[in-house]
């Protein structure tokens, strides 16, 4: 009898906490629902009707239209190509930097500060420098000429992609490096010591122990870099404006133009295609990570 009453009391106590703490959630949940979730449902709806007034159901027609749209194809292709090159590079290089800073060298914290500084600087503030560097008569070409090469029209040729990858690395390496540094610090020392006693080679320790302990960080950095790789639009926009050279025409350019023409069907279908794409990629990364690091307890 007494026990039962106590349990009841505990249950009602928990229900009370549940109720009261729900109030804390309320503002955020209301805001997120209003600005993100509910309109997203409308976006799904819009993507399948003929126009926002008639609401005639056309199912996949809008998707086909977007998919077959040459501007969308160009934008998606360029964005994909850029991400496909830039993301693995930034992951590998930032991991390398983190390992390098993990060894016993002087001036560690100063080097970390300097490597992190690019993330603090607004893109708008450094655009002038990139122009000075990569203009047709700019410093980079000066150097190439000096070395006996030929001038490159950086922003109006396929080399534009190289420049973009360079700018992306500059901005993101430090940030990702910090994530790797904290993960490396959390690798249990004992395991490495045991491996050393067992006379494991350094590359074996690296491949079979370290990278596996880092696998969840690698996953996270990859996803983060993927999202950030979509932000490279900022650099492109500031350097070349609304209508860049073909190889620099990105998904955000496509979206901006579609926003300005107020074509809701196209906009919605494009947004859905992109979000599905993101979900598939992220899901895939999670599956790979689960497989690779499954026998490690967090």
């Amino acid at each position, binding site marked *: 009898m007494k026990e039962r009453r106590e349990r009841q009391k505990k249950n009602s106590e928990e229900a009370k906490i549940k109720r009261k703490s729900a109030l*804390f959630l309320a503002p955020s949940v209301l805001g997120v629902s209003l600005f993100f979730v509910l309109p997203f449902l409308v*976006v799904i709806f819009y993507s399948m009707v003929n126009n926002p007034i008639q609401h005639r159901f056309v199912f996949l027609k809008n998707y086909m239209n977007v998919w077959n749209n040459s501007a969308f194809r160009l934008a998606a292709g360029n964005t994909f190509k850029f991400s496909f090159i830039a993301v693995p590079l930034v992951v590998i290089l930032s991991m390398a930097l983190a390992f390098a800073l993990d060894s016993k060298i002087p001036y560690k914290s100063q080097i970390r500060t*300097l490597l992190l500084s690019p993330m*603090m*600087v607004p893109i708008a503030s450094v655009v*002038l420098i990139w122009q000075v560097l990569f*203009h047709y008569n700019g410093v980079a070409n000066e150097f190439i000429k000096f070395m006996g090469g030929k001038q490159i029209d950086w922003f109006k040729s396929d080399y534009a992609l190289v420049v973009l990858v360079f700018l992306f690395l500059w901005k993101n390496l*430090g940030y990702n490096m910090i994530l790797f540094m904290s993960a490396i610090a959390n690798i249990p020392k004992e395991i490495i010591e045991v491996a050393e006693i067992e006379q494991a080679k350094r590359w074996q320790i690296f491949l079979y122990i370290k990278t596996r302990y880092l696998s969840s960080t690698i996953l996270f950095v990859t996803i983060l870099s993927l999202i950030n790789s979509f*932000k490279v639009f900022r650099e492109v926009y500031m350097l070349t404006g609304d209508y860049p050279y073909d190889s620099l025409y990105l998904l955000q350019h496509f*979206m901006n133009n579609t926003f300005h023409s107020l074509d809701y069907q196209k906009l919605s279908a494009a947004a859905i295609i992109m979000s599905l794409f993101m979900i598939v990629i992220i899901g895939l990364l999670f599956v790979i990570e689960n497989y690779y690091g499954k026998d490690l307890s967090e």
Partner: protein
Amino acid sequence: MKKKNVTGRIVLTAVLIAIAALFVTPIVFTMCNSFMASSEITANYGMIFETTDSGAKKFISDVVNLKFIPDKVSFSQYITVLLKSPDYLLKFWNSVILVVPIVVFQLVVACLAAYGFTRYQGKVREIIFFTYIILMLMPYQVTLVPNFLVSKWLNILDSNWAIWLPGIFSPYAVFLLTKYMRRIPVSILEAAKIDGAGEWQIFMHMCMPLCKGALCSVAILIFIDFWNMVEQPLIMLAEEQMHPLSVFLSKINAGEIGLAFAVATIYMVPTLLVFLYGEEYLVEGITYQGGLKG
């Protein structure tokens, strides 16, 4: 063996220092150049920014002349920006007006929500939290579409509200703070409860003081993110007068190129100050994120 190790370490240090130096060069360069007089800038970089071929101006050479140290240190650019051409100050002010409310209110909303996610973890809440994570992982190209639609329905397009509201309710800070708060031992909060404190009191007097560091970290991350915004103003604010400096700087015209370096420097001063005083918080903030699952 030992000797090889030492040389290796020296080489590694040298390489790292070289990379680090390369990384700050653009920042230092911008600052140095902001102290050049207008004529010097035109002489050095005129080639790049002069679009119309007037032929009236004389350049030192037909190529760009990258220069760190000004011939004569001059504050004339700053004087012009601050006193004579109000357009830039106005845009700077636009940036402040757009960013500060987002940082403050996103933090408030996120603290409350994070407490809600921490205090009770039922099935429904886990689903909501998962939704937040998915939203956080979506690029702007996706989230701007729903944001735009709502802003249109609420008739707040072309006003600051169209940037403020989606910014304030962005799930990013909720995610970070929840991850941090869930590490606070439940026993601490329960102890306060037994002492007769209500939920609000526990939140204000126990939870918040414990999260001070985390709040600084998250505030810095939000600030950097929005100080740098480009996509949102381009879509939400048709009127150029309302654009923040982060967008406007790219539209600077060739005639005012001398000013550009000074404006660029002024625009990075707030973020560099934050970096100077908050680097440790920033680094901590970045590391909270590590691992989506944890």
